[in-house]
């Protein structure tokens, strides 16, 4: 069995679990629990362990998706997963500037620990108060548009949108080895 492992990370409530559910064919293991006080302001339920989703698209080919827990501290499980990841997507809710700093922390952590390529997925761009991609890029520490990871808008609730984001991630990661799209 050939397997590609993608990690879906990002601050609490960015849409990681939803993203994985939208593209997985198996019932995603639900590890959501009542959020503690901090996260309650944002949402009622939060993921306490890693999400896992799977998509088999050939007899011996599968995509595995891992979602990082929303509130947990960076522990050894993160390390194990990101060491094995082919690529990752950082989800950031565009309407929640409060979480931009957390997104930066996660990014710094990931970059330090893993050489895997990353793209940024902006969720909640349909919500009021959403910032535009250029300003979010600045807030995440990417002043130079020519030197930043690809940024895509994605609605984690829509399968088509999530599929497109995964395509972007795959195409970015294997830019050299994928033949031009037909």
């Amino acid at each position, binding site marked *: 069995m050939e397997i590609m492992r993608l990690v879906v990370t990002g601050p609490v409530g960015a849409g990681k679990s939803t993203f994985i559910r939208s593209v997985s064919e198996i019932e995603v293991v639900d590890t959501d629990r009542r959020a503690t006080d901090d996260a309650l302001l944002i949402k009622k339920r939060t993921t306490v362990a890693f999400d896992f989703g799977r998509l088999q698209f050939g007899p011996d080919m599968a995509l595995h998706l891992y979602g990082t827990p929303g509130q947990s501290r960076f522990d050894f499980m993160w390390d*194990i997963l990101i060491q*094995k990841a082919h690529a990752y997507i950082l989800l950031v809710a565009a309407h929640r500037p409060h979480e931009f700093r957390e997104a930066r922390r996660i990014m710094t952590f990931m970059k330090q620990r893993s050489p895997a390529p990353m793209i940024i997925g902006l969720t909640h761009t349909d919500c009021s108060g959403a910032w*535009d991609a250029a300003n979010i890029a600045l*807030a995440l520490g990417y002043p130079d548009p020519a030197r930043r990871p690809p940024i895509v808008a994605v609605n984690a609730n829509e399968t088509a949108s999530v599929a497109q984001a*995964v395509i972007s991630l795959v195409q970015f990661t*294997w830019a050299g*080895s994928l033949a031009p799209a037909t």
Partner: protein
Amino acid sequence: MTVTGYLADFSLPELFQLVEQGNKTGLLTICTLTDPTTVARHNHHIWLSQGQIVAAGNSLDQQGLMRLIAQRGWMGDRAVSRLAQSCQLNTPLGLCLKNQGVLTAEQLKLLFYTQVMRQVCALFALPDGWFQFDPKAPLPVSEMTGLIATATDVTLSGLRALKDWDALDEKLPDPSSALISVVESKPSLRLNPNEWQVWEFTNGTMAIKDIAQQLNLPVAKAQQIAFRLIVTGLAEEMPMIAAPPPAAFELAAPTSLEHGYATSVTADAAGAAPVSQSFLQNLVGFLKGKV
């Protein structure tokens, strides 16, 4: 595009970092939220040109600088207005008055200090406020001295002088995080001795609380210094791995992860196994069918 939000979500030092890194020109307005002790709301305006602060004030009537000059007793508003009429269209009022010989360079500096440094630095202590950055607002020459300060300099001075950190408490890096430098060479900013000391530890290996201990600083103080290094673009907060509790592995693995995954992972060599060309083609083809 206009940027809006609340300072409790995106703090003033972060906002300054954003406008500076984005070389932004325009008007930043901060509207303090109704304070129970006063009925009126207060607006604060900060004008920026290419990421640098050129003026500040609390009204849009274009008279703020004139009032400051009058307050100093250097000249009455009327005299200033009259002189201002002969200024060239795009010349800052302060500079124009200096060119006419009515204000000295020292006086201009003092004006800028009062108008920008003092007013803006006071805003770092605001517990909250609604902000809006309007990139289309014209620069008001009649509010400008002609002097400028980088947003980073204002942040550094403002945060150094800040006594009450309550408003920013939540934004400070975690004591268990390390710091990692994001600049290639020694910072060109003028850091103070404590900042230099903390800067020496920006290699991603030592937790801020341990840096504090090494330097004999209170942890809160070290966090504040670290925050200054972060919002001035010198360092980033680097979360460190928490030590695993002895039983955590068994707890975490079976509930959430694919069976056998955790064991196979530890058995393998580090890094992701390469995937084949046909795998990639198939995957992309399959996903395209869902779009």
